[in-house]
């Protein structure tokens, strides 16, 4: 099992996972989507809202704002000592108070005052509502850790997908450098450099086989390595993408050790 990083930049993480089966790659993908916790607003107490954005719409918009998550300092409400009632270990309070003194004032995510300076909206420029002169919004919001399987607002990733590692075999003797495959490829994977047809960016190949079909001389062959995957993870900004993968692996390992424990208990009971 081997990991090679192609790109790790901002919210994007692209890597090759080698020597594993699809089931392992898919387990990892599903854990990243549904089980890696992140922070999101879950409860909103609206004290005053005279803006044209209705209360329920406002609450929904607030919930969808990705918050920078600190997994070390917070626990999931269901695992907390307070049993999900809400205490400082599992709940963070954010407040918002804004009055429009002129026409068309936009309420931004930067107007949300967080109790914890670490956990804040990932961007300050998210418009939450717009108000006419004299309108007011006063509210209190409770952010909690949650999982993507409960609500998509807790999903730390926007895209999380993998594909097989493409293999392009070019028979240079048969190839006449006509350039048909180069123009047919929708992802611009191929190029003619000097007197040779070369593969420029194999990672962009979508295995569509357009090049293979367009070649009149049978000089190109598309196949893939089914033990090697190109993973594409894009974070919403809640967690750094490399952390998402790491946390997902830990969650998967914990699930397996729980299973092992359950099995050994069952075997022991059977022996009695």
């Amino acid at each position, binding site marked *: 099992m081997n990991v090679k990083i192609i790109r790790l930049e901002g919210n994007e993480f692209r890597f090759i996972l080698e020597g594993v089966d699809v089931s392992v790659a898919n387990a990892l993908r599903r854990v990243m989507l549904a089980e890696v916790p992140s922070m999101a607003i879950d409860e909103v107490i609206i004290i005053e809202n005279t803006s044209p*954005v209705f209360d329920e719409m406002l609450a929904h918009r607030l919930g969808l704002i*990705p918050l920078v998550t600190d997994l070390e300092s917070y626990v999931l409400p269901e695992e907390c000592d307070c049993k999900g009632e809400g205490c400082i270990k599992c709940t963070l309070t954010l407040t918002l108070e804004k009055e429009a003194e002129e026409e*068309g004032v936009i309420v931004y995510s930067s107007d949300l005052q967080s109790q914890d300076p670490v956990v804040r909206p990932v961007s300050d420029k998210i*418009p939450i509502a717009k108000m*006419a002169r004299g309108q007011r919004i006063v509210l209190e919001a409770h952010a909690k850790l949650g999982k993507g399987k409960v609500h998509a607002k807790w999903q730390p990733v926007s895209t999380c997908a993998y594909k097989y590692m493409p293999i392009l075999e070019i028979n240079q003797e048969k190839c006449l450098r006509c350039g048909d495959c180069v123009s047919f490829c929708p992802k611009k994977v191929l190029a003619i450099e000097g007197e040779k047809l070369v593969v420029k960016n194999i990672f962009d190949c979508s295995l569509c086989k357009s090049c293979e079909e367009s070649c009149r001389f049978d000089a190109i062959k598309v196949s893939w390595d089914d033990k090697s995957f190109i993973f594409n993870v*894009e974070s919403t900004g809640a967690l750094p993408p490399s952390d998402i993968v790491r946390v997902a692996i830990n969650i998967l390992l914990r699930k397996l050790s729980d299973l092992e424990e359950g099995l050994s208990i069952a075997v022991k009971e059977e022996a009695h």
Partner: protein
Amino acid sequence: MIIPIRCFTCGALIADKWEEYARRVRQGEEPKAILDSMGLKRYCCRRMLLSHTDLIDDILPFSQKIRKEEEVF
């Protein structure tokens, strides 16, 4: 009415890009070039901005009128 916070399909944050996008379109730039420069690669996220109409500015004057009538009663 007002720009959705996230892309309906993939869940990526798009609301923070709306104001820059709208401003640059008003200045006469090509939407394709703006979306590319803002790093919106997938067509699901691109359509969010491309097909959005910011109707909240049209609703705003009415909401204020209702508020004033409420005060009268």
